[in-house]
């Protein structure tokens, strides 16, 4: 069995984001990391591999900087590293990226696919269902846990009354919400092995997939509006004003 984990490199949640000329200035991003939900997906995939055996292939699409992400995945236990080389990844829309990922998944021979429910930068949330559609796989979203149950897999996801367990068989895609355990920390042995592991770089041409033209055009990025300054009230006589504002403006009481 081959398990694929689809990973995206995003600006670290602690990195300062600046916008320059209507675009996020990537050169100013001090630290790139795994998208947090992808970390949960990777950890769950590693745990499934430990129980069910098989190969774990880590796949990412993006520019050369993404190789670091694959090395980090190898350090915690990914067996095969696939880099879909796409320097212009920001010009591609979600469907184009899904086509690339789906082609790579099929080329890797994986039948069980893990990914995060959404990426921390774009938050589009379409990768899991999109790839599943393209490869004709079942898809379970908002997953927190996956277990192998002999014939197939049981995924735990939230339901209106708590949690539900969904049984699927391969091929299947699990789009992870916050999982049960955080991604493991690597160790020196893993890091030293990761250094030696080859990264397979697959170009769009090599994948032989027609991704068509982008159907989405981003006009511009803009930083979030600055928060309006807070208002300060002092003394007992301000109570009625504060209560009025909480009721009428903030709608919290």
């Amino acid at each position, binding site marked *: 069995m081959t398990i694929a984990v689809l990973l995206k490199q995003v600006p670290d949640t*602690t990195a300062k984001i600046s916008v320059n000329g209507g675009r996020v200035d990537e050169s100013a991003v001090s630290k790139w990391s795994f998208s947090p939900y992808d970390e949960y997906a990777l950890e769950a995939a590693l745990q499934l591999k430990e129980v069910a055996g098989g190969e774990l292939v880590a796949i990412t699409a993006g520019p050369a900087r993404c190789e670091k992400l694959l*090395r980090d995945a190898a350090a915690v236990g990914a067996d095969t590293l696939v880099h879909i080389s796409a320097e212009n990844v920001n010009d591609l829309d979600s469907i184009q990226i899904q086509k690339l990922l789906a082609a790579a998944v099929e080329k890797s021979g994986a039948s069980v696919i893990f990914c995060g429910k959404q990426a921390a930068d774009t938050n589009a949330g379409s990768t899991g269902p999109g790839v599943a559609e393209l490869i004709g796989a079942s898809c379970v979203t908002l997953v927190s846990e996956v277990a192998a149950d002999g014939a197939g897999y049981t995924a735990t996801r939230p339901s209106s009354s708590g949690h539900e367990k969904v049984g699927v068989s391969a091929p299947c895609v699990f789009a992870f919400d916050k999982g049960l355990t955080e991604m493991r*920390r690597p*160790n*020196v042995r893993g*890091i*030293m092995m*990761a*250094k030696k592991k080859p990264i397979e770089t697959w170009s769009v041409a090599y994948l032989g997939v027609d991704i068509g033209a982008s159907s989405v055009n981003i006009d511009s990025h803009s930083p979030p509006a600055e928060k309006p300054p807070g208002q300060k009230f002092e003394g007992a006589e301000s109570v009625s004003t504060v209560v009025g504002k909480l009721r009428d403006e903030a709608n919290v009481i």
Partner: protein
Amino acid sequence: MPYEALDFYDVDSLLTEEERMVRDMVRDFVDEDVIPKIEYACRDGVFPDEWRVALGEMGVLGAPLEGYGCSGLSYTAYGVICRELERGDSGLRSFASVQGSLAMYPIWDFGSEEQKQHYLPKMASGEWIGCFGLTEPDYGSNPGDMITKAEDMGGHYLLNGAKMWITNGTIAQVAIVWAKLDGVIRGFIVEKDDPGFSAPEMKGKHSLKASVTSELVFQDCKIPKDRLLPNVEGLRGPFSCLNNARYGISWGAVGAAQACFDSARDYSLSRIQFTHPIASYQLVQNKLSWMLREITKAQLLAYHLGQKKDAGTWIPEQISLAKMNNVDIALEIAREARDIHGANGILDEYCIMRHMANLESVKTYEGTHDIHNLILGRHITGIQAFTREL
């Protein structure tokens, strides 16, 4: 505020990708498992056992040693590990320094094949803790005149004497003890349960509070003959260990200084006095820029020394300079950072006074600041000034 490691000259860009991954691993451990617990550990005066387990799992104990379950990383990587650990706390870095450089290294370099196979894998994994007994109550800077002695009783050795200021002593399963056998300094492996050996903890420290410091007492302590380190005699044994530990300290001090700088910068930007952040005042900016200047120099010193260690082109005097300088500036930076924090600087909400108190020990142990000056003085002039006929 997340920690931002000052690296004004991009010195870390000189590291290999592997060294940067090791850095990120240890930094993550310190952020997640050390910083949230360190003040409690200090108040309770304990070294949390889960840190021992984590250090072993990460594979950073005895990191630059090859084989026997050790990682075989570069000395530069070992330095980076020390820097990141000491950003958390000097006591944590001390644990790793003692385990790797002072307890594992002598077994690795001077031990028999059987000793290496028996001790090193369990020490690399953190299962067994090691300590290093050289300093005595009356012999600190002058270890050559140590009193502790070993006698060859035919079937075993008998150890008598006492060691003091021994990091990890009480919690160690293995002690590397330097003692005189027929007047010559030799290394012995003493195990926790050897008859006549005890390791009472020293209490009441204002420094390195999250680190265990002990006495080692030998009263007719009987140890088997196969516990002598066969391949070294004289002060070269302990000094070889100290060279490696001092090298690690030269990096570690940078980590403590970076932590203090980070806190001082953040505090000065948020602390408003006279209607403006104190960071906007020239006196505070002068202090911050001095810190940046000294940290940058210390980083370059540590990195270049690491390259020399890895190339095998170093001399002990170069380690003396780096240990002395980097601890000295780290301590001064901690003091200045405490000053910038005003009254808040004495609280354990901020790391700086803890680092300051720790660095007072670091300045003194592993060769005092003054002794390192004398080592350099001898190197420059050819005249030793440690002792004279009075």
